[in-house]
């Protein structure tokens, strides 16, 4: 019995629901030219990138990152500044900012991942708060409360932008799934189960945790950069505690440690959020209240609910990967 082929994943091992979603989304602009809906899908896709990349660290190691805004807003602002002050095209600004995110990820991961659980969680929040506070101090660069406006989009056509963003989301999904199935993912799961046992298996656990943290931050930063340019604006909300918490909730409600859960959760809940605009005044209250309720009712996430886990068929539909025997 071989565990898996050495080459890249096979399509039939992937979650059917996700594949369906990815295809359906990419076909959407052909069946509808409602720009409003396309914008909603764009936002949903970006939040999916946030949730999935958050998951590869926290879902797989149980080190809880409460300061994801650091990467989201940090990269967004860096790319925005490059674009706005130095006229660097988003196609270059974003990669540069993402690279910076990666480097910071390695640096911060190295400093913080040795802290015990709750302290790690708090210190991630603190790093994000530091950036948030800094954005109000250096207002000439960051625009303070108002942020930076007038950023360039990717193409001149919102639909083309949509395809780009949807493609990036799909690519992120496959990259993260591949990573999770690889030696790296298996080691992270082992660390999650018992770090000492993993160390006694000859594994440098610190390295793999830092790597996951950096990957998480890099992809999250990619999402942040894309978000900034798709909205043509970056503001302090992308560095706030609010967005950090929302990403956590989206991923957890979806179901940590699966990549699929956060994707579906983020897409579903983001669409709900937009749908609630018909009661705009109450939207945020309903949305945050609903998220709180969901995490209370399903602390392990919707995809990890017992009735799905216990059913072989449902398990396969959502998560794919039917292991032999």
């Amino acid at each position: 019995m071989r565990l898996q082929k050495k080459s890249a994943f096979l399509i039939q091992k992937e979650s059917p629901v996700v594949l369906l979603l990815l295809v359906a989304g990419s076909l959407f602009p052909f069946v509808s030219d409602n720009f409003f809906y396309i914008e909603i899908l764009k936002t949903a896709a970006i939040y999916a990138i946030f949730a999935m990349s958050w998951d590869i660290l926290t879902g797989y190691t149980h080190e809880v990152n409460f300061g994801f805004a650091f990467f989201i807003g940090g990269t967004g602002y860096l790319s925005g500044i490059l674009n706005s002050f130095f006229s660097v095209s988003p196609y270059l600004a974003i990669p540069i900012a993402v690279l910076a995110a990666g480097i910071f990820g390695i640096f911060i991961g190295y400093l913080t991942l040795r802290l015990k659980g709750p302290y790690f969680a708090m210190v991630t929040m603190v790093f994000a708060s530091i950036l948030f506070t800094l954005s109000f101090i250096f207002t000439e660069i960051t625009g303070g409360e108002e942020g930076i406006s007038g950023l360039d989009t990717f193409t001149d056509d919102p639909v083309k932008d949509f395809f780009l963003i949807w493609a990036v989301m799909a690519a992120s999904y496959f990259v993260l799934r591949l990573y999770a199935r690889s030696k790296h993912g298996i080691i992270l799961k082992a660390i999650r189960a018992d770090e000492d046992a993993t160390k006694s298996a000859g594994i440098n656990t610190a390295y793999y945790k830092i790597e996951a943290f950096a990957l998480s931050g890099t992809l999250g930063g990619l999402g942040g950069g894309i978000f900034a340019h798709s909205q043509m604006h970056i503001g302090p909300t992308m560095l706030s505690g609010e967005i950090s918490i929302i990403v956590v909730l989206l991923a957890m409600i979806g179901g940590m440690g699966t990549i699929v859960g956060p994707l579906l959760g983020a897409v579903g809940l983001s669409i709900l959020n937009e749908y609630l605009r018909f009661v705009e005044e109450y939207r945020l209250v309903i949305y945050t209240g609903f998220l709180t309720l969901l995490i209370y009712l399903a602390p392990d996430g919707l995809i990890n609910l017992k009735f799905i886990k216990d059913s072989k068929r449902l398990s396969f539909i959502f998560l794919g990967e039917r292991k032999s025997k």
Partner: protein
Amino acid sequence: MNLLDIENLTKKFGGLEALLRFSLSVREGEIVGIIGPNGAGKTTLFNCITGFLPFDSGYAFFDGNDIQDKKPYQIVNLGLARTWQLVKAFFGMRVMEAMMVPSFSKRALSIHSSEKARQEKIEKLLREMGLEKNIWSEVDNLNQGELRLLDISRALVTCPKVLLLDEPFSGLSHKEIENISRVIQNLNNEGLTIVIIEHRLKELMKLVQKVVVINFGKKIAEGIPEEIVQEPPVIEAYLGKRRTKVGLA
């Protein structure tokens, strides 16, 4: 040659001396037992020489390498592997996955350079341990005996030169102990150097060539099993000051 050289190792927890100038040498191919009452310092010793606890003074050399300030994973990659007294397993994963983890260690990767070779080694080990039917089971579903065997298998995947076993018999039935003893004996016959901490004296004495006795962090006796059980300090340590002959039966 001495694979393991521990000299005057001292470890204190505040005022408590967990280990006091403890020394031990283990030759290649030996199978050594470490015994002593609860709290004597046996597991602390293992923790110190595997990098999980820093020690205050003394020396520890493994295969010629100074292992004092090394991290646990580095020591494993030098060839010193250990098992755990309280079950530590990769719960939430399948047995096969759990066994792949040690196969990703630097040492295992360099010895078995192809994925195929690693895969075969894992399957071979699981077969030798009698766990081949469990390859795809969830680790959570294994019983205590199987978990111990899995722990030993996990250690063996890293191709160690010396294996430290921490109370491998604890919580097992007689039959399971017999099974594991046989496995340990075979491993030693094939050339693996083994150090075992145990409380089940009868079963241990059948297995080892040399016994070291610890009490209150100090080595109080060292020798062959038949002699050790008759040494007064040893009897005293286990039974208190009484004049009783503790036989091998």
